[in-house]
């Protein structure tokens, strides 16, 4: 299992199907507009927001550039606090470690608080294969799990479902049958369904938002209290944490605990944040295991320009402002991480062969960069990965080398290189365009070039170009 779903077609095809779903577009349009407006309000009241963003960026950059030092320090701090640290090179190894840890306790089921890392590794499916039931306790994750669906948003995985669809799902699954579609009533149904499960769970599984190398502190930021339940009540807690989640010191949390809530749920602070290190007598789990997950992250680290992708704190602000995401939804990305961040993160984690179309799933408008709380320059990374994707395709096969778009763009690049060539090409094009230019527009290009005109018209080269007019008027 990896960050990409192999059964979803390349983005252009999947997006086309998603765009045809009017209900999906309505649900997404409403939800993303709500959160965009709220975010703007809580960000604008912070006069030092730009200073916080820059500090967040710089801290993450520094941490990543010395990741080995911080990982070793974190390991020592967690062990000193009575925890156990495990290392997983890939998703499969992570799942094997977690499964063995659960089996060692004798538990047949576990409660889970929403964790992107474990969606990435496919942990629930691996546990199920070992006969262990993994119950998702975050409301949106529960909706996805009950509907045998896939997450479509980093923060609100069921964003593609509206209240009426959720009511119908709950009536079919957890009851009762007279549920209304009031969000408060639906939340109450989830509370009743999960309460007894929390109380009898012996193993909890979580992700981590931040891991403090200095103190060994892990943190889960959440809203519902399910995160507190999962990290506090069970006897054993297993936390899966990507190796990029580290911050050097306790003090550094002062930056990230301000950036994350305002960027993600657009709140000044999320309702609950749990911070713990190791185990504590008389408070919380008696055994704590931390699994540090690579799964492609070191590959990203090796690319100096794309490395900044690992600074992501998974707030999802870039999804909510993205004009592409707002229209296609998350499933079209075929990736655990959708939206702009998914378009740069997933190809690096899952490989270009699987996800090479994702860096192209953007208009490069730059809205994602503007809202990113740690200033990841997503547009620049997108262009860089497009180049990598093209080069890898060309290197992989003759077909890739002979791709018409690639050849055409190469020719264009040569034509644009000098003034003389450019002007000769214009003259040539004016004579050659007559089969496709009609009434001052080119509505359809032939063959493989037809993709360009599928969604837009091209202007033909005019009888007199601007440059010709400029020369003539003197």
């Amino acid at each position, binding site marked *: 299992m990896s960050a990409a779903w192999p059964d979803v077609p390349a983005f252009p095809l999947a997006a086309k199907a998603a765009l045809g779903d009017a209900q999906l577009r309505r*649900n997404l349009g409403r939800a993303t507009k709500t959160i965009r407006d709220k975010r703007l309000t809580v960000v604008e009241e912070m006069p030092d927001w730009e200073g916080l963003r820059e500090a967040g960026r710089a801290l993450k950059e520094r941490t990543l550039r010395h990741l080995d030092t911080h990982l070793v320090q974190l390991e020592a701090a967690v062990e000193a606090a009575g925890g156990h640290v495990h290392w997983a090179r890939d998703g499969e190894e992570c799942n094997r470690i977690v499964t063995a840890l659960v089996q060692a306790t004798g538990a047949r089921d576990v409660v889970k608080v929403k964790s992107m890392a474990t969606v990435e590794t496919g942990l629930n499916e691996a546990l199920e294969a070992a006969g262990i039931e993994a119950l998702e306790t975050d409301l949106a994750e529960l909706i996805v799990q009950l509907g045998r669906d896939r997450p479509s948003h980093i923060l609100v995985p069921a964003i593609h479902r509206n209240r009426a669809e959720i009511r119908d799902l709950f009536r079919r699954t957890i009851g009762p049958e007279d549920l209304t579609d009031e969000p408060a009533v639906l939340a109450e149904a989830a509370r009743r369904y999960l309460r007894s499960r929390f109380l009898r769970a012996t193993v909890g599984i979580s992700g981590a938002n931040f891991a403090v190398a200095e103190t*060994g502190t892990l943190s889960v930021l959440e809203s519902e209290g399910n995160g507190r*339940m999962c990290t506090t009540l069970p006897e054993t807690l297993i936390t899966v944490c990507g190796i990029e989640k580290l911050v*050097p010191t306790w003090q550094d949390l002062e*930056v990230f605990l301000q950036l994350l809530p305002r960027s993600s749920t657009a709140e000044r602070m999320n309702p609950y944040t749990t911070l*713990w290190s190791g185990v504590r007598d008389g408070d919380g789990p008696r055994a704590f295991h931390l699994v540090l997950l690579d799964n492609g992250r070191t590959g990203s680290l090796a690319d100096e320009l794309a490395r900044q992708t690992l600074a992501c704190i998974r707030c999802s602000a870039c999804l909510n402002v993205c004009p592409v995401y707002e229209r296609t939804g998350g499933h079209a990305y075929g990736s655990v991480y959708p939206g702009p961040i998914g378009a740069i993160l997933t190809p690096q984690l899952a490989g270009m062969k699987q996800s090479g179309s994702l860096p192209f799933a953007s208009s490069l408008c730059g809205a994602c960069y503007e809202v990113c709380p740690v200033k990841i320059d997503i547009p620049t990374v997108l262009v860089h990965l497009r180049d990598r994707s093209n080069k890898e395709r060309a290197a992989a096969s003759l077909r890739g080398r002979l791709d018409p778009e690639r050849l055409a763009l190469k020719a264009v690049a040569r034509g644009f290189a000098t003034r003389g060539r450019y002007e000769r090409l214009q003259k040539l094009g004016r004579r050659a365009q007559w089969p496709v230019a009609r009434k001052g527009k080119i509505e359809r290009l032939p063959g493989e070039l037809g993709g360009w005109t599928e969604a837009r018209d091209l202007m033909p080269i005019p009888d007199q170009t601007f440059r010709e007019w400029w020369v003539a008027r003197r």
Partner: protein
Amino acid sequence: MSAARDEILARVRGALKDVPASEPSDASGLARDYRRVGELSHEERVALFVERCADYRADVRRVGAGELPAAIAQALSARGVRRLAIPTGLLPDWRVDGFDWVEDDALTHDQLSEVDGVVTGCAVAIAINGAIVLDCGAEQGRRALTLLPDYHLCVVREEQVVELMPEGIDRLAVAARAGQPMTIVAGPSATSDIEFNRVEGVHGPRTLDVLVVAAAPA
């Protein structure tokens, strides 16, 4: 197990060949160009905390130094709660007459679920985001205590209120280094998972009352 550790660390080091050895690994030299020391007066700071905490639909009230026991009794009566769990370190004069006080002397999770509510103090309160931090100190108890009961009455002393997040994090540094678990609470439990609309009351306490008590005159 250690093979994986060695391999991951080797991959990390291999990926970071461009980083000069002279560069510090910690945050030294990085700009922290954001507010780190508050500028509000005591009165403005407490008022901001009250406003922002109440914004989460917590019921927040200010009380004078001598009025706390009466205010506790009034809040509990108004909510109709009678059996209340408390941490063992809670001050005796907060345990007002007319209610059943159940000390959390290693109560089971089921027992904690059955009380009507819980009364605690806090470690720090942060004005700018209306958040309350519990660090499992004597007046707060363990994490499960403030999680399982459906009602939480939290007493905040005015001198525990700081203006900014960095000031709060700084006050908590000793507890963090001592490995004390912490919970930051901003209002009652809530979810935004249905159409991004916030709804209060999911798994944690569905009702949060906060009493902000003035310092006793010196």
